[in-house]
């Protein structure tokens, strides 16, 4: 019989496995569930049945029915309620022995360490590049305090998000994500608002990606153009450890033709369209999900890079509490909301944490694992932020020069940073279509009920997204601002407002809402609103 290795189950609409950022697609067990049981070995006459009679006959039926339809047709696929329970599924080796499928619950599989790593991996985004700038904006001491405080706050909000489906009795919530919980409590408006704000974070991320990709592509091109033809005479040789302050560098007025065509703000964003718009129009993004490991490598490389740079440059820290000085910034600044905005996006995982936690083997350790993951993420951000800030050579340059993308502070000719830029560029090129796919699936699914209504719809949506990215890259490429605004906007809804409200409503329904709890959660909502408003004023 043909295709004996083809899984008989595992048909699920592709949208579902990408209800979160692509890196966790491999954690979804349903697509890999083994249900193919070979016909039993009839050579030996064992007194005891090796598989249950029901499973054996079901296998025979499934075998037969699969011959009657096309391979992608599901009209005769066994529905879930018909599949035997895990205890009755056996796997046969060709030699005739049979062993049971190890406790294979569809949803719980991964040991804690894998879950923690998956959360860390998903949360680590490009906001890591803006943390030093954020710390600079808030002031060194205040920045550290805010980082810890915001991390704890978002950890708590994440915790009430994971708790929320469990409080719902009487309905099967095993497949629900947070928008479904919002729909349950607040009806259509709840679902729509959580969706819209989720879109804000996704589209904000995509715009940031476009700006960064233009940046990295530009620098890569500069490196190759300037450095490689002239390896002996490269002017940057001595500057491998130097950092730049772009604000003080005078604009290079003499433009040669290369710089005319290879300009960070004018032409490169447009070149990227040719590369990325076709990728966005792919029907399925599973190809790009394979490259998520690149993100991990990039982050690790960044950490190594930061360590080496800090080791070479040494520490330059002086504490000026409230007054600015020529080279240093005060330790407590009024611009601190910019850091909170950035951190809201940096610690944001609330739209997909339920799905990530579902595959944790020991569900009772969820809170512990989540806390460890947040600790790890906070630690990584703190490490990178503090080291870059501290190692920034202040005597010649002012701390105020730290760029929203700290890699910009290194010259184009720096080899280590060049490698970092190339890695990140490649990683972003592979993650960008995944994000586009998520946006497309959610928007098209909600508006038209179909993930791919027609090529024109998709094209219009993609042009809109790409256009936003291009415009931002050309006219306002300050990723710090883009990150803090999109972070504050989507944070308001998905981190502070909706989770706190859902928590209070569910406590009220159970009759457990104390006034302290109500005050605290209302305070959370107020914090969220304040965070957003402060972005406009500070």
């Amino acid at each position, binding site marked *: 019989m043909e295709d004996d290795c083809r899984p008989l189950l595992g048909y699920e609409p592709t949208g579902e496995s990408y209800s979160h950022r692509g890196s966790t697609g491999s954690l979804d067990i349903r697509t890999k569930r083994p249900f193919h049981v070979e016909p039993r070995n009839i050579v030996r006459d064992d007194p005891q049945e090796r598989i249950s009679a029901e499973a*054996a006959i079901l296998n*025979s*039926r499934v075998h037969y029915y699969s011959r009657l339809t096309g391979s992608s*047709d599901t009209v005769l696929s066994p529905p879930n309620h018909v599949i035997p329970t895990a205890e009755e599924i056996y796997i046969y080796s060709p030699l005739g022995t049979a062993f049971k499928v190890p406790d294979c619950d569809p949803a719980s599989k991964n040991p804690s360490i894998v879950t923690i790593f998956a959360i860390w991996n998903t949360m680590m985004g490009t906001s890591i590049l803006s943390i030093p700038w954020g710390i600079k904006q808030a002031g060194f001491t205040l920045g550290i305090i805010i980082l810890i405080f915001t991390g704890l706050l978002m950890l708590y909000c994440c915790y009430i998000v994971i708790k929320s489906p469990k409080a719902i009795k009487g309905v099967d919530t095993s497949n629900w994500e947070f928008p479904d919980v919002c729909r349950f409590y607040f009806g259509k408006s709840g679902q729509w608002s959580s969706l819209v704000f989720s879109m804000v974070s996704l589209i904000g991320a995509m715009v940031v990606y476009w700006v960064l990709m233009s940046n990295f592509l530009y620098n890569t091109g500069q490196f190759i153009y300037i450095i490689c033809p002239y390896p002996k005479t490269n002017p940057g040789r001595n500057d491998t450890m130097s950092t730049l302050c772009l604000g003080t560098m005078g604009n290079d007025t003499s433009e040669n033709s290369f710089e005319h065509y290879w300009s960070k703000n004018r032409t490169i964003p447009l070149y990227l369209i040719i590369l990325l718009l076709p990728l966005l129009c792919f029907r399925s993004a599973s190809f790009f999900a394979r490259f998520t490991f690149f993100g991990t490598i990039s982050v690790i490389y960044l950490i190594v890079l930061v360590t080496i740079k800090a080791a070479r440059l040494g520490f330059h820290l002086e504490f000026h509490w409230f007054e600015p000085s020529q080279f240093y910034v005060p330790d407590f600044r009024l611009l601190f909301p910019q850091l909170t905005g950035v951190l809201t996006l940096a610690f944001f995982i609330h739209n997909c944490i339920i799905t990530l936690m579902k595959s944790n083997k020991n569900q009772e350790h969820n809170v512990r694992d989540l806390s460890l993951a947040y600790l790890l993420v906070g630690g990584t951000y703190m490490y990178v932020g503090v080291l870059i800030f501290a190692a920034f050579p202040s005597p010649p340059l002012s701390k105020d020069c730290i760029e929203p993308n700290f890699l910009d502070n290194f010259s184009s000719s720096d080899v280590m940073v060049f490698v970092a830029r190339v890695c990140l560029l490649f990683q972003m090129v592979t993650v960008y279509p995944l994000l586009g796919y998520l946006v497309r699936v959610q928007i098209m699914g909600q508006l038209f009920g179909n993930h791919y209504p027609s090529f024109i719809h998709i094209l219009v949506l993609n042009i809109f997204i790409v256009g936003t990215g291009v415009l931002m890259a050309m006219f306002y490429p300050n990723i710090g601002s883009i990150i803090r605004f999109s972070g504050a906007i989507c944070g308001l809804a998905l981190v502070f407002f909706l989770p706190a409200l859902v928590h209070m409503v569910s406590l009220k329904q159970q009759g457990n809402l104390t006034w302290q709890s109500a005050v605290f959660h209302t305070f959370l909502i107020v914090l969220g609103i304040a965070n957003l408003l402060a972005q406009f004023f500070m």
Partner: protein
Amino acid sequence: MSSSAMKKKVLLMGKSGSGKTSMRSIIFANYIARDTRRLGATIDVEHSHVRFLGNLVLNLWDCGGQDTFMENYFTSQRDNIFRNVEVLIYVFDVESRELEKDMHYYQSCLEAILQNSPDAKVFCLVHKMDLVQEDQRDLIFKEREEDLRRLSRPLACTCFRTSIWDETLYKAWSSIVYQLIPNVQQLETNLRNFAQIIEADEVLLFERATFLVISHYQCKEQRDAHRFEKISNIIKQFKLSCSKLAASFQSMEVRNSNFAAFIDVFTSNTYVMVIMSDPSIPSAATLINIRNARKHFEKLERVDGPKHSLHMRMR
């Protein structure tokens, strides 16, 4: 006597979406084309040319579909559809929310049958029972059965509960076939004698097109209660593979140190499967026995039933 007048029909009817096409595909090993699902209602009789029990042709109709188009076509072609019907198999979807409507269409089919083919046998299948919780299945089926029996008077209807995901479908259709074979008891007695004479462990009689078990004899307890359905599935898959090469399945012998099994054509409507657990008996002996028995059984078939004898004489 023209052969077309002899083609009696088996009508498979029911509401659109009740599972008739899947059922027919599974029982008769037809490939379900993707289009039937997209089209929704089975618009036409499909001219299926599926031969069943020799001279019966299976016709599939959607009854009471959502279109008024279906209704009109139905009423204008009514006599044509319901003439010469040997068997009416009506499929009810147990999950249907429109019980009144279903019963209404069923009754109009019965009226048409009474007018045009009053001798037809009526079977009702309450389908998709796997969607009902296990502890409620008996209850729900009994309710439906009572309603249907009541509605079907003066005709007698036999009810079965079925689902493609358990053995009930195969058993229901096997029961239907059993009731359609003339003189089936005599066949069974002769089959038992045959089995005892050749010292077989088990002898099965299958309907030719569908490999539904008509009758069987076993001399000792067998372990696997689902073996008939499994054999049927295996042979139907084999037939599907054969048809890809434009070959047709005729006979099969499976032998190992523990047993020998023979599947072969028996009479014009049936296949026989003989299981011998004494491997020392040579194949040739069993095959000769089967061949001799074949002549005997064909005589049996020829003797009974005017329909079948007419059919035989015409060949």
